[in-house]
């Protein structure tokens, strides 16, 4: 996503966040949306400021571009996400077993569905990538 499009998306996050905040104060939305709205507005504003800085500061732009495109950083990102996948799948599997032992049937069902979904997603993605490469 180029910088201009990112800035537009971040402005939308800020506006949505402000909208939720106003909605809780005037529109009678549940107070939990105040938290969501505040978070969205704050994160959107932070990212917007970062994107403006990226656009105006040549040194920062060069440094950021190198950091994003750097092959070692890409490798580390891919490895990190792979480990997150392993931990999530194994974690949900272990949680399923624990809930089964504790006879917490509802929780066990949820974690078993999550485990199955993660394994199915892995199989589908593996199949797609094996055709692509």
């Amino acid at each position, binding site marked *: 996503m180029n910088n201009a499009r990112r800035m537009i998306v971040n402005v939308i996050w800020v506006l949505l966040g402000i909208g939720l905040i106003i909605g809780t104060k005037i529109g009678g939305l549940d107070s939990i949306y105040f938290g969501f709205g505040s978070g969205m507005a704050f994160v959107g504003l932070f990212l917007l400021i970062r994107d403006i800085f990226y656009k105006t500061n040549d040194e920062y732009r060069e440094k950021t571009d*190198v*950091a994003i*495109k*750097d*092959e*070692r*950083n890409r*490798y580390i990102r891919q490895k990190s996400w792979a480990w997150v996948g392993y931990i999530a799948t194994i974690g949900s599997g272990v949680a399923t077993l624990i809930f089964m032992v504790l006879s917490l049937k509802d929780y066990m069902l949820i974690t078993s569905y999550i485990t199955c979904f993660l394994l199915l997603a892995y199989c589908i993605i593996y199949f797609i990538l094996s055709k692509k490469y």
Partner: protein
Amino acid sequence: MRNNIEAIRKAHGIHQEELAKAMEVSRQTISSLENGRYNPSIVLAYKLAKYFDTTIEELFIFEEESL
């Protein structure tokens, strides 16, 4: 994989930062390459060889046991 990047770089009187800029990678990547913690892609290996006007075989030492 062992390599001679550090020795060749120093022989040319180039700093890691300079080499990183020329290769369009971060200085940390060059550092990790030199101490063998990271193996480069074929593209980066080729670019390094071309930069130092040498061959990939001169830069990188392939050992069967390292696989």
